[in-house]
Structures are given as structure tokens and as C-alpha cells.
């Protein structure tokens, strides 16, 4: 073992360590990297840290934190040590995710048409029909190619045994893919030599793949479908990503006020008159899309957009109403969906989930609040959750009241010891930090995944929450060819 890693403690009895085997030797796929890092002095690391910081600052890669008054723009923390996934593990993840996304898409197509799965009582009808993300008006509206979820970003974690499990499916407007792309650029600048030693599978074609996917779902027969990105605007926390993706794809970044509907067709207002739009990659939530149909106070959307969509004159990615399937309650039924629609066993496991609206589960949840993670079914970004082992008695009591008042809105999962990966706390000290993985699945004619994803890392010591809004950072993620 060499200098930088000498003082690193893996704690193999409590956590799965991504880099070191329980006996302390590096896993095979990390061997060359550890060797290389071992040759760096603290000074080297500091210089490279500087290179990366300048890169991110110049790119303006920032995100916005809600609920904090001062200095709301922050640079997303980036950890210099890449996370490596060997190709056999990746193949399993890839197959597992494609299986899962296929089943979830079948599910959406089903509940927005014949609702067979509800009539067969595989999923309780009241959970679907009562979900605030189930949009009744879209029953019978079939999106192009029958695809609802064109861009998804499932969160995958590893438990203490190193088992890959899906923690949640983000089927609405998952963000973070720009960090995945930028992290790779940053690391290439900082450690060009490291890339010589591994066959790292490239991810730079993601924007092209995304554009191809979006063009595939064009409902019109025009040869070069006009795709636009729809953003809520400069105050949105992910605005950087919206503008980044638009620039990378070479398409217009639009706000609601740039679009007009004429005769149920969508146009951008340009200095050369109106230009027809075929596909909208929208990063605006369902609720804000069309003030005539959803929230009348929304200034982010376009009046008449939903009618244009229903008439089949424009495609939306993702389709409307997909939120019903990434509800954390519905999540617990995904393995059943996979068996029901595909007649296969799930390749990737779910995390055990107790539903508060099931009286037996509720009792268990309330008795074990200090051991469980309780989540609100419809919140994302780490808001509205209780991490039992880290909570105070008072917090638990307050949360218990909320659960009892609205059981449909809560689920509980065991506190999973997320796998750990050595990361820099400062220039010379490594510590094991919890990580997860968010690969991005694109679904046009077929589902595809760019190899890798965003590895988020909890840089607060001991914290299990990796969301960027909660002080998490990220790592470059390598899928390697052996």
C-alpha cells in the first residue's frame, strides 16, 4: 500500500468499500489507479484541485439552493478520485435498468389506457387513481411510439454486501446529467495520464444521443424535426444544465413566453416570424406546463400546449403524467410489474419498503422510527425525509404525527449502509464517503444507456444524503472495458 491510501480506513465490517477488499488489498479494477495516486504528492493534488476549480468556475457550473438567503449560487463540489465500475457489473446494471424502464413504460401505457394491471389487482387501484400525479385527462392519449419516459435517471445504491439496488426511479425531469459530462471533462484535464491506463468508455456522445431520441419521437413527418428545450428560466436551480444541454445539442433554449400555440400547433417566436416546433424537451413540471389546464397562476408554461399535445402536433419529453410511476409508494410494486408485463425476474433489487397506508406496515414504521428512513412519497431532492438513526426524539415525534395524518404520503425503508468510496476531505486526507449512482436511460425507439452516470457522494462526514441540494458532491464515473 502506498502513501495516500496508507491512512485510509475502509471499515469493511460496517460498509462495502468500493476500492478496498475487506483484507485491505485494492480491488483489481482499482489497482492501477491507486498506484498512480500513490505517486502524487500533496502539492500535486493541490495543483490539480486548482485546475479543476478553475474549470468549473469558468464554466459557471453552479446550482441554486432553496431556502438559503445569502449566496444562493454555489459550485457543485467535485471529488478528484473517480469511481470505477468494471464491465461485468455494468452489464448487469444496464440490463437491469432497461428491464425496469421497459416495465415502467408498459405500466404507464397500461394505466393510461385499459388499466389491466389494476383490474388484475397486481397494483391496488386506489394507489394509482388517488395519486396526485395521475392525470385522468390523459387516459387514451397515446404518445408517439407509445413511449412515456424518454429520459430517466434511476438512483442506484449498494448495500453492505455490495449488492446493487434501485432506490428510486426518477421519471419526471431528472437532472444532473450535465455534471456527469462536465466531471469527465474536468478529470481529463486534471489527470490525463490516468486515462491512458484504463479503457474508459466514453460518455461524450450523450447530447447527440439525447437529440436522436428526441427527434425519434417527433409526431410529424418533417425530415428535420425542430427540437427545443423548455426551461422555467434563469432562477431555476438547474438552469445551467438546461442551457448546457441546449447548447450541446445545438437547439434553442426556450422559456414559456417564447412559445405560442396557433391552431393547436406549437411555434417559437423568432425575429423571422413563427417557427414550428415538433418536440419539446421540457424541464418544467406537469403542473406548470399549461395555465389553461393545470395551475392557472403558472407563468412558466404555454397556454394551449396541452391541446396541441393531445392533438398529436407536438411531442413532450417526458410525457405528461409519468410522475404517477415514480411515486415512492408505486415504487414498491415495480418488481411485481416486471413479472406481470415481462414475465421475468427483476435483475436489480428494490430496497425493502413499508407503506404507511397499510395498517400492519404503519405499526411497524412507528415502532421502528429510529431505525428507518421515512420519505414523503412525492418529494424529491432530499426534502421532507427523516433519517431515523440520525434524528432526535423530538424530530421523530413530529414526523410520526405527520405520518399518521397522511399515511398515503409516506413510506419507510431500512437505513441502508450505502457503500463507501475514498474521497478527499481536504488536499491530503482521504475518507470513506457514501456514494450512489444515477445512470441516465434514454428511450426513443429502444432504451439505451450511456455507460456510466453521475456518482453522487456525501461529502459531509457520515452523512447518508447525497443530493446536491443537501451539500453532496459528485465524482467522475468510469465504466471500463477489461
Amino acid at each position: 500500500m502506498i502513501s495516500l491510501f496508507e491512512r485510509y480506513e475502509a471499515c469493511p465490517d460496517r460498509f462495502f468499500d468500493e476500492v478496498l477488499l475487506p483484507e485491505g488489498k485494492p480491488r483489481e479494477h482499482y489497482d492501477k489507479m491507486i498506484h498512480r495516486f500513490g505517486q502524487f504528492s500533496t502539492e500535486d493534488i493541490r495543483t490539480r484541485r486548482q485546475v479543476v476549480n478553475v474549470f468549473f468556475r469558468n464554466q459557471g457550473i453552479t446550482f441554486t439552493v432553496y431556502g438559503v438567503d445569502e449566496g444562493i449560487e454555489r459550485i457543485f463540489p467535485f471529488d478528484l478520485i473517480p469511481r470505477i465500475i468494471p464491465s461485468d457489473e455494468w452489464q448487469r446494471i444496464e440490463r437491469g435498468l432497461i428491464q425496469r424502464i421497459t416495465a415502467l413504460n408498459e405500466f404507464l401505457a397500461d394505466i393510461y389506457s385499459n388499466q389491466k394491471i389494476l383490474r388484475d389487482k397486481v397494483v391496488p387501484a386506489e394507489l394509482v387513481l388517488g395519486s396526485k400525479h395521475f392525470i385522468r385527462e390523459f387516459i387514451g392519449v397515446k404518445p408517439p411510439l407509445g413511449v412515456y419516459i424518454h429520459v430517466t435517471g434511476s438512483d442506484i445504491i449498494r448495500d453492505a454486501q455490495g449488492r446493487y439496488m434501485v432506490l428510486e426511479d426518477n421519471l419526471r425531469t431528472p437532472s444532473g446529467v450535465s455534471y456527469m459530462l462536465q466531471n469527465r471533462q474536468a478529470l481529463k484535464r486534471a489527470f490525463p495520464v490516468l486515462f491512458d491506463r484504463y479503457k474508459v468508455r466514453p460518455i461524450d456522445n450523450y447530447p447527440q444521443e439525447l437529440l436522436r431520441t428526441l427527434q425519434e419521437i417527433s409526431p410529424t413527418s418533417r425530415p428535420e424535426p425542430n427540437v427545443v428545450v423548455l426551461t422555467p428560466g434563469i432562477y431555476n436551480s438547474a438552469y445551467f444544465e438546461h442551457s448546457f444541454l441546449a447548447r450541446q445539442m445545438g437547439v434553442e433554449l426556450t422559456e414559456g413566453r417564447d412559445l405560442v400555440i396557433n391552431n393547436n400547433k406549437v411555434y417559437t417566436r423568432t425575429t423571422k416570424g413563427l417557427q414550428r416546433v415538433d418536440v419539446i424537451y421540457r424541464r418544467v413540471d406537469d403542473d406548470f406546463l399549461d395555465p389553461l389546464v393545470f395551475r392557472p397562476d403558472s407563468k412558466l408554461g404555454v397556454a394551449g400546449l396541452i391541446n396541441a399535445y393531445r392533438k398529436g402536433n407536438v411531442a413532450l419529453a417526458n410525457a405528461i403524467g409519468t410522475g404517477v410511476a415514480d411515486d415512492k409508494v408505486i415504487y414498491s410494486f415495480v418488481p411485481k410489474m416486471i413479472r406481470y408485463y415481462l414475465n421475468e425476474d427483476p435483475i436489480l433489487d428494490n430496497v425493502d419498503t413499508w407503506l404507511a397506508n397499510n395498517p400492519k406496515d404503519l405499526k411497524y414504521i412507528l415502532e421502528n422510527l429510529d431505525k428507518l428512513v421515512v420519505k414523503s412519497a412525492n418529494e424529491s431532492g432530499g426534502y421532507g425525509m427523516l433519517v431515523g438513526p440520525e434524528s432526535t426524539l423530538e424530530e421523530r415525534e413530529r414526523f410520526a404525527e405527520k405520518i399518521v395524518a397522511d399515511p398515503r404520503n409516506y413510506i419507510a425503508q431500512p437505513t441502508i449502509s450505502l457503500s463507501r468510496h475514498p474521497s478527499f476531505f481536504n488536499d491530503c486526507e482521504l475518507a470513506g464517503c457514501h456514494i450512489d449512482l444515477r445512470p441516465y436511460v434514454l428511450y426513443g425507439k429502444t432504451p439505451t444507456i450511456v455507460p456510466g452516470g453521475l456518482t453522487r457522494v456525501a461529502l459531509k462526514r457520515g452523512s447518508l444524503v447525497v443530493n446536491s441540494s443537501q451539500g453532496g458532491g459528485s465524482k467522475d464515473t468510469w465504466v471500463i472495458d477489461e
Partner: protein
Amino acid sequence: MLSRVAESLFWMSRYVERAENTARFLEVNFNLLLDLNDIAIVDHPNYWNPLIRVSGDPDNFVEHYTEYNAHTVTDYLVFNRQNSNSINSSIGMARENARSIIDSISSEMWEQINNLYHFLQSMTPQQVHNDPFTFYKEIKNASHLFQGITDNIFSRTEGWDFIQIGKYLERADNAARLIDVKYHMLMPKNGQEQDPVLDSFDTIQWMAVLKSCSALEAFRKVFLSKIDPENILGFLVLDRTFPRSIAFSVCAAQEALWRISGSSRHRYANNADRLIGKMEAELSYTTVDDMYRKGLHDFLVDIEHGLIRIGEQIHLLYFAYHTPKIEPHDISEALPFTGIAGGRANWSQSQQQQQ
């Protein structure tokens, strides 16, 4: 280009130019008062009231202040956010516009506007009063730096043309207002067409007008030291080479509009092009005598109104959703050159492309 982006580029540029012009008026007024110190009462409202008439709204001013003096006028024109034309408001608006299209402009342009904004936030009225010259110079330099960065970095695309239009329309408008107000003050009330008897007092004031357009040196190169109102008017209104004259600004705005629409000297594609072409032609063939004959005030007011109409047409044509049609009687005005088909050509093409 998206209408929203074009509109923001236009206004970003226009507001920066507006702030610079306001700074120029104020700076020169302070200068002037120093020169006049021996022969007149400096804090006399007559020296401050015209500034409000040039760059602001007198009704709005009297709502906030009781008298015209150095302090109140500076406060109103520099700091007051209730005055939508104050330097603070202008730079705030320029920054908001730039921010909303931050991915369409270079980061250097954004940084420059942002720096200027934060510089203004850090200033107090007392600081400005203690050293007005340094302050106004900062503003002018910041605007020049912004324009220089834009010149050197921004691609010569449609967006560039909208930046130019915003800048030059604003500049022409400010020049017209400034001359109008100063002329009011300086010309003898009886016998407009006679040569006024210029005493040193008036000469100094006219020089101040030239200075506020940074025109004194350029003027001297053409007219040596013959500081008389006719030469000055000819220079500030009609000179084709001086970049802050009205004729130069209108011509530059016209070129940018033509590049966008593809209009040329012999055909216009839309109402904005028609109006600016008409104004440019008029300025080309007008003499100082013509201006006097019409009455200088009327002449300048016509220009101000013409510029407003051009702004409205640009808005309707490029920024707003509903695009206007050329009214038939307007087309007939173009007949001597091109005939109806020619006058319409570009317009109907762009209509077809929308289908």
C-alpha cells in the same frame, strides 16, 4: 433568433447607452458650472432644470423633490430607482436583460455589466457629490469598455445588429433632446433667424454641449475655433463622420436594420426600414438653414417622434408575436423605385416561410 433573445440584446445595449448619456449630461453640467463660477450663480435652478428636461420626466421629478439644485438633480438622475431613466435604473435593467440571455452573450460582457452594477451599488450620493468627475468618468469608461468588449467578441450575427440598433437609436434620441433643450436656453427669444450676438457666456455653454458629446475636439478639427451655433448644430445633427452625431447614429441603425431584413437603398422590407430610410434620407439632404426655416425645435421633435415610431415598429416586427402588415398607402410611397412587387418581396417571403 428567438424574439426574446433579440429583444433582450436590444434593451441591454440601449440601457447601457442611456446610462452613459445621462452621465455625460451631468458631468458636463458640473464642468460648465465651474467655468461659470465667476459670472453667474452656480446653484441657480436654471442650470439644473434643463437636465431634467433632457433626460427625465419633469412631472415625476417634482413629485419627489421641491427644488432644482445639484443635490436633488444628481440624486434623481443617478440614484433614484423611481426614475426609470436614472443611471441606477438603466444599469439595473441592462443587467436584468443580460442575465436572462447569459448563454447568448460572452461571459466577459456579462461580467462587465455586472461589475458596473456592483460599482453603482457601492456608491453613495455623498461620494458622488465630493468627486463627481471621477464618478462620471467611471460610468463612461465602463460603458466604453462594455462596447469595446462587445465589438471584439460578439459574432457579427443578427444579435450583433440588434445590439447596434439599440445603441444608435438611443444615442440619436439623446443627442436630439440635448440640442433641443440647450437651444431653448441659449437662443434669443426674438428674431430667430438673425445671428445671435454671442457673448462669452453663450460660447462657454455651447462648448459644454459639444463636450457632453465628446465632440469639442472633433469639432475644432473641422471648424477650428469658430464656435457659433450654426456650425455646432450642423456638426451635432448632420455630420456624417462623427460617431455621436444624429445623422451618423441614424445611418448606423439603418445599416443594422437592413442587414437583418435584407433591405437596400431601393427597396424596404418593412415599416421600420421604411421609416429609418426616410429619416436617413432627410438628414442627408438637410442644411442648417432648412432646420432654422422649419424651426429647430420642431425639427428636433420630429426626429424624436420618428425615433419612437421606429422603436415601435421594431418591437412589433421582431419582438412581439403579432407582426404588422404594411398598409397599402405606405407601399405606394415606395413605388418610384421598385413597384409594388419589389416593395413587398422580402415581406411576403418571410410570410410564406412561416407556414
